[in-house]
């Protein structure tokens, strides 16, 4: 019998993330515009709103004491940001036009040389760079550092930043989003109130902009609540990366395909690796694998460790030292998985939360920034006299559809799906799609839910290298290198079935890069095993949501504290 993760849905319903306002009106925190998530999208929206207030102070005055508030669940802006990252500067140039030049932003310079390699266990074959992957003129960055910079910029423009604050429920009143409720703090493991308990608050806003990033907690609930889901489901990939201090500079950006992934169609292993120089002293190396894979023993963390043992990679890292580690999911459904609409009454959705990612180009940061900027402008239009809020917010959809985001994503809309047919067939089809600028094939190929892929058992884990603490590392020391020091005695924020077939428990245990899940004993006659959890290890990558569970926000300030990722 084949098992699918979706056969064991989590004890969670999207309606749990939606509620009516509950605080008395005089205890509510009233803000003008509320943005959830201090990532590239949310920060761009905040900065644009700050600029508009600066340009039209008389209009801004109508927004009250707190014109723009920005919620961030991490310890500080940037704490939960992780990406490659090679950034297309286009959207930042638009955001800062006439105000700042790109030289003032924390980039590690433009991409110089670049190589795309096809790896086998021992060899590396240089292949021509696919046109979608050409990075000429793009800039290398740590998105965590970029986020910190943008947050300072936003604060200078008068934006109120609220870090360590989760957005727990979307407040809906009379069919309209009126704000969010923030999460409680200081609860014990069983949910009891500890000595430092602080209840969450209702934050009421004229417009709420959700920029929660991948696996957005409220974004998912909003898509359900307002019937915004598109025709095809979203799919994700999991990326795990490390930042290394190296003795000799790396002179190029490297992408790899092939080993350690397997090309066979039945495995459904789509992904690759990236190695980028961050100045002369740092190198970042990461592995990304689509979560439509089937093998219960596949572990992206361990594949990254295996990748580093390749002679080509060893040469880059030799004599170096790992300084940081992190993991995060990436929405990969692209154009066909986009929502029907990007707005609802009182609500705008942007960035990775709605899947604005170009998989063949390995890019999404500039789409996040552009969508944040466009969302800010639509929100601002609600202040224009004689324009209804509904009409104003609807202009966001029009602006997105006529932006470069839309053109880019439409052109590559069927590429990711083609790789479900194995590496070689997928590669050939992707080539044809590029050559035809997306006109071939004419229709849309459907995506399939990651959790609907039936599981496959292999002995893959036996080939992963044993951690030596120098080049290769185990998961626990990696969690330490993420800066995670989450309070252990808080309520579990991960919703999964805790009695499942052994295959599914093993899938989760191997998949999770932070060693949250452990396979327990078979404790009954039904052959199911217990799943044990260590939730404070969680780095909030979101993979569990793609594979049959549900990540909800833990207490604000929990999770990794990335600085260089």
């Amino acid at each position, binding site marked *: 019998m084949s098992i699918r993760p979706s056969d064991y849905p989590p004890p969670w319903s999207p309606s749990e993330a939606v509620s009516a306002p509950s605080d008395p009106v005089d205890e509510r925190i009233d803000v003008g515009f509320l943005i959830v998530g201090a990532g590239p999208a949310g920060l761009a929206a905040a900065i644009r709103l700050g600029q508009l207030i600066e340009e039209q102070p008389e209009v801004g005055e109508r927004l009250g004491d707190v014109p723009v508030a920005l919620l961030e669940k991490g310890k500080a802006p940037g704490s939960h940001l992780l990406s490659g990252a090679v950034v297309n500067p286009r959207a930042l140039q638009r955001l800062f036009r006439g105000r700042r030049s790109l030289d003032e932003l924390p980039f590690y310079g433009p991409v110089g040389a670049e190589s795309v390699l096809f790896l086998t266990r021992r060899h590396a074959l240089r292949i021509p760079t696919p046109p979608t992957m050409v990075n000429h003129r793009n800039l290398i960055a740590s998105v965590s550092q970029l986020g910190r910079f943008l947050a300072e910029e936003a604060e200078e423009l008068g934006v109120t930043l609220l870090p360590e604050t989760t957005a727990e429920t979307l407040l809906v009143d009379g069919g309209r989003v009126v704000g969010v409720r923030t999460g409680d703090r200081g609860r014990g493991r069983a949910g009891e109130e500890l000595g430092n308990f602080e209840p969450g608050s209702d934050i009421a806003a004229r417009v709420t902009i959700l920029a929660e990033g991948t696996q957005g907690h409220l974004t998912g609930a909003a898509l359900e609540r307002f019937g915004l889901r598109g025709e095809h489901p979203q799919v994700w990939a999991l990326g795990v990366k490390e930042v290394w201090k190296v003795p000799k500079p790396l002179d190029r950006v490297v992408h790899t395909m092939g080993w350690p992934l397997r090309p066979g169609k039945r495995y459904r292993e789509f992904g690759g690796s990236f190695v980028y120089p961050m100045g002369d002293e740092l190198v970042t190396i990461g592995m990304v694998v689509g979560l439509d894979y089937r093998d219960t023993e596949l572990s992206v963390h361990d594949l990254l460790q295996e990748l580093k043992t390749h002679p080509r990679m060893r040469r880059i890292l030799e004599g170096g030292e790992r300084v940081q580690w992190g993991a995060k999911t990436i929405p990969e459904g692209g154009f066909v998985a986009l929502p029907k609409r990007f707005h609802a009454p009182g609500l705008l959705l942007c960035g990775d939360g709605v899947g604005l990612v170009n998989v063949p180009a390995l890019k999404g940061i500039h789409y996040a920034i552009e969508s944040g900027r466009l969302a800010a402008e639509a929100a601002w239009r609600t202040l224009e006299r004689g324009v209804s809020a509904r009409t104003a917010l609807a202009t966001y959809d029009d602006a997105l559809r006529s932006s470069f985001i839309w053109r880019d994503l439409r052109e590559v809309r069927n590429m990711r799906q083609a790789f479900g047919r194995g590496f070689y067939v997928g590669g050939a089809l992707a080539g044809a799609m590029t050559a035809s600028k997306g006109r071939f094939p004419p229709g849309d190929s459907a995506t399939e839910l990651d959790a609907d892929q039936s599981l496959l058992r292999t002995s893959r884990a036996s080939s992963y290298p044993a951690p030596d*603490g120098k080049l290769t590392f185990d998961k*626990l*020391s990696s*969690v*330490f290198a993420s*800066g995670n*020091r*989450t*309070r*252990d*005695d808080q309520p579990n924020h991960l919703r999964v079935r805790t009695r499942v077939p052994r295959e599914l428990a093993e899938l989760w245990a191997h998949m999770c890069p932070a060693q949250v899940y452990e396979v327990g004993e078979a404790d009954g006659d039904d052959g199911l095993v217990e799943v*044990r959890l*260590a939730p*404070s290890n969680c780095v909030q990558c979101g993979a569990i949501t793609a594979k049959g569970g549900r990540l909800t926000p833990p207490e604000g300030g929990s999770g990794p504290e990335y600085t260089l990722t």
Partner: protein
Amino acid sequence: MAKTLVFLEHHEGAVQKGALGVLAKVPDAHGALVGSGVRALANGLGTTVWVIDDDSLAAPLPQPRVDVLAKLVRDEGYDTVLFAQSVLAADVAAGLAARLEAGLNWGLVDFDGENGRAPALQDTVVVDVGWTSDVRIGIFRAGALDAGELGGPSDVRDAAVELESFSSLATMVEQAHAEQQGPSIEEADVIVAGGRGLGQPENFSLAEELAKALGGAVAATRAVVDAGWYPYSAQVGQTGKTVAPKLYVALGISGAIQHKVGMQGSNVIVAINKDPNAPIFEFADLGVVGDLHEIVPKLTELVRARRS
């Protein structure tokens, strides 16, 4: 030369070990004893000890202590006030820093009269820390210092008590103690810690027996606290307590870095684990590869025999 005052926190008729460590660390430092009926504790510390003794200072509340220390610093011209980490010390130091507009560095492991040293980035490096304010306030990390050699007659001086009106607003309603046998893990010279390798919660009795024989306290790893085998108050590690006893005996503990950062300051680390590849053997002073269920009872017996 710095003129340094050390806050001598006391509990149940004895000055806390940590505070004595700070006093011994800084040459010519003076002490401040604040409380009610504490005069006798000032003897034999071999330095100047200010005694601020008054009924109004009986309860261990921070604000009255901020008042008397602030006055002492201003009247006597102290430029440095040092504390040993505790809940009360953190409250008093923070209040004093605000009152004197002084900078506060915490987690110190060293102080040279001018600058301090403190671990940073989750203990991966030790950095120099300094002050830009006129008065320096610092909190030493728990277990960072030995009590060292203190002795000789004290020069006991009295200081007046003048409390601000707002400082008596808070009163102590009740003081409760968590049920505990033997010393707390922050104060113990010997710690016996148990990990998943104990096999089951009942086997913590092995650790308890050995700790009792050695006159020490019992600690636990996150994994076993998570599993509900032992209370959170005994958890040592990154997200638990940081300890630095003279002897740390690790039973069935693999030694993940999250645990290591909470106990790596221990003087002697002894590890008993059946897995020869466990990371703890890389930083233990003495490693025993074997079955703790056989070894520990025998060890306990030997310790008892030796002690009796």
